[in-house]
């Protein structure tokens, strides 16, 4: 009984950690630029795929991982420079479509540069499951959960303790005022794309040994990440992380105790259900419309 519960909880936390990181990436870009970036899932794909092909080419794992993060950052910066920046001031729907177009491009290139196969990585600390109170847990699980916790901590410190982080927060809360006090808001937006891309890539390379990866894993991750963001309340980093973990846990428990046929549906049901009760998400605040 307990072992089963523990097993589901760990798998829920693992998936939830990935959703949380995707959602955190969404939130950072949204706060800096008001763009809901549907290419966020593609950064996760890049993280996994570049690491797989890097190690296959003979690079040691840490170097391959670093390469993956750098590739994702470069792609994030290009996306911002070539697709988002030229469309500044367009309506939210147009911006959403542009980021989906961006996702098509990234996926299209990945399909040509890499291939259409499923790929996996060996676990970072071996494959032997650890027995914990009757539940058998892959060592990679701890890498994912631990890695996500470290990233969330670092991002929090970055926003609260560094000058640049505070400039990002200032830009998020009022772009014009931030500009007036001398913050280079264009640079901040580029920075937020780079940061989100890096976070996505790290999530991707950490989780690939468990979930496998291929050129098209990005779409579902982006959809669930977006669901997590909205569940938590758009714009709140803590809400994004909480939303991601809640969705992951709901998925794992419903798959374990009920049925796994509709595993992918759970995230959306929970999200819609929450919105009906709390139209601004769990941690969101209501805002008044100006006439």
């Amino acid at each position, binding site marked *: 009984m307990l072992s089963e519960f523990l097993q589901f909880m760990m798998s829920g936390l693992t998936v939830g950690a990935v959703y949380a990181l995707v959602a955190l990436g969404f939130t950072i870009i949204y706060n800096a630029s008001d763009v809901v970036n549907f290419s966020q899932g593609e950064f996760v794909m890049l993280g996994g795929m570049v690491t797989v092909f890097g190690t296959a080419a003979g690079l040691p794992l840490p170097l391959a991982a670093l390469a993956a993060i750098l590739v994702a950052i470069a792609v994030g910066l290009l996306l911002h420079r070539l697709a988002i920046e030229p*469309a500044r001031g367009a309506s939210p729907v147009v911006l959403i*479509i*542009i980021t*989906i177009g961006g996702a098509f491009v990234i996926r*299209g290139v990945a399909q*040509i540069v890499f291939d259409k196969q499923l790929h996996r990585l060996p676990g970072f600390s071996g494959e032997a499951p650890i027995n914990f109170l009757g539940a058998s847990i892959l060592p990679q699980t701890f890498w994912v959960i631990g890695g996500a916790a470290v990233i969330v901590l670092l991002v929090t410190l970055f926003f609260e303790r560094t000058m640049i982080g505070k400039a990002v927060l200032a830009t998020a809360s009022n772009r014009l005022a931030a500009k007036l006090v001398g913050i280079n808001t264009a640079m901040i937006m580029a920075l937020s794309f780079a940061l989100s891309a890096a976070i996505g890539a790290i999530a991707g390379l950490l989780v690939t040994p468990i979930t496998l990866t291929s050129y098209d894993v990005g779409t579902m991750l982006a959809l669930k990440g*977006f669901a997590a963001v909205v569940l938590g309340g758009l714009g709140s980093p803590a809400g994004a992380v909480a939303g991601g973990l809640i969705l992951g846990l709901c998925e794992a428990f419903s798959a374990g105790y009920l049925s796994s046929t509709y595993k992918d549906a759970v995230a*959306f049901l929970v999200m819609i259900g929450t*919105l009906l009760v709390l139209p601004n998400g769990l941690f969101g605040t209501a805002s008044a419309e100006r*006439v």
Partner: protein
Amino acid sequence: MRLSWDNRWIVPGLLLLVIVAIGLILPSSYYYRVGALVLISALAVVGLNLLLGYAGQVSLGHAGFVGIGAYAVAVLPVHFNVPTPVALLLGAFFSCLVALAIGRPILRLRGHFLAVATLGFGVLVAMVLTNEIRWTGGPDGMTVKRLEILGERIRTPQAWYWIAGFTLVIGITIAQNLLNSPTGRALRALHDSEVAARVAGVDVARMKLTVFAISAVYASVAGSYLALLNGHITPDSAGFLHSVELVTMVVLGGMGSLIGSVVGAAVLVILPQALTLFHEYEHLMLGVFIILIMVFLRDGIVPTLLQRLGRKP
């Protein structure tokens, strides 16, 4: 009677002329098939434009209604012996009911929250269609019984070109008349400012719900036609990518322009057909085109052209 762009018959009339003219000169059934696909997509896009372009409410899940319409004419005739035309009407009626049921709570949401809730609805429909294998054939889809009229099987692309064409003209006429009615003016007020519309006495919730249900019916009928034209249907018709495609067609042609809906559908249906020449690069080029068009024509093709010509959009 003076002819002007404001006249409610000029848009459907011009469209009818263009459809007939093109229908008479297309060279082969391949072209009729592409033409029929354009007209069918345009029907769904006109409905979505009422919601997105006129009422200002986003839906990232409209392919869900396309899926309901498509599977209505696929499942009901095969499993329950319902005649195809009745199945089409039942599908449209069911889509309308679903839209009314989910619209009531969902349409209270705004902006990105509405986008993600409708997105969730579309994904859920696609999941049901994928998982209920006994009824729907699962991810591989199912064969659709052809439409029979007076014992005659309607299966040529030519026939569907004309059926879809006339339906689209009727659909646009209804939409145009709706927009010229008090309801249409209330919708535009809603688009500009919800609070202001409410203060001016518009029943905002009811208005949104009505237009959501109407757009669902358009999408459902388009879905039924799509299934009957292809003779085969898969859950992808209800998927997220198809929803995005529909929204892109609306924005591409021009939000709040009915002719724009047809133009947007035409561009986005014909473009991938042309791109299959570069099959390896299809995804990549489609993405590049979408970005370029959105960056340089962000108001949509038709409004931008009208502006250039010095007319009001």
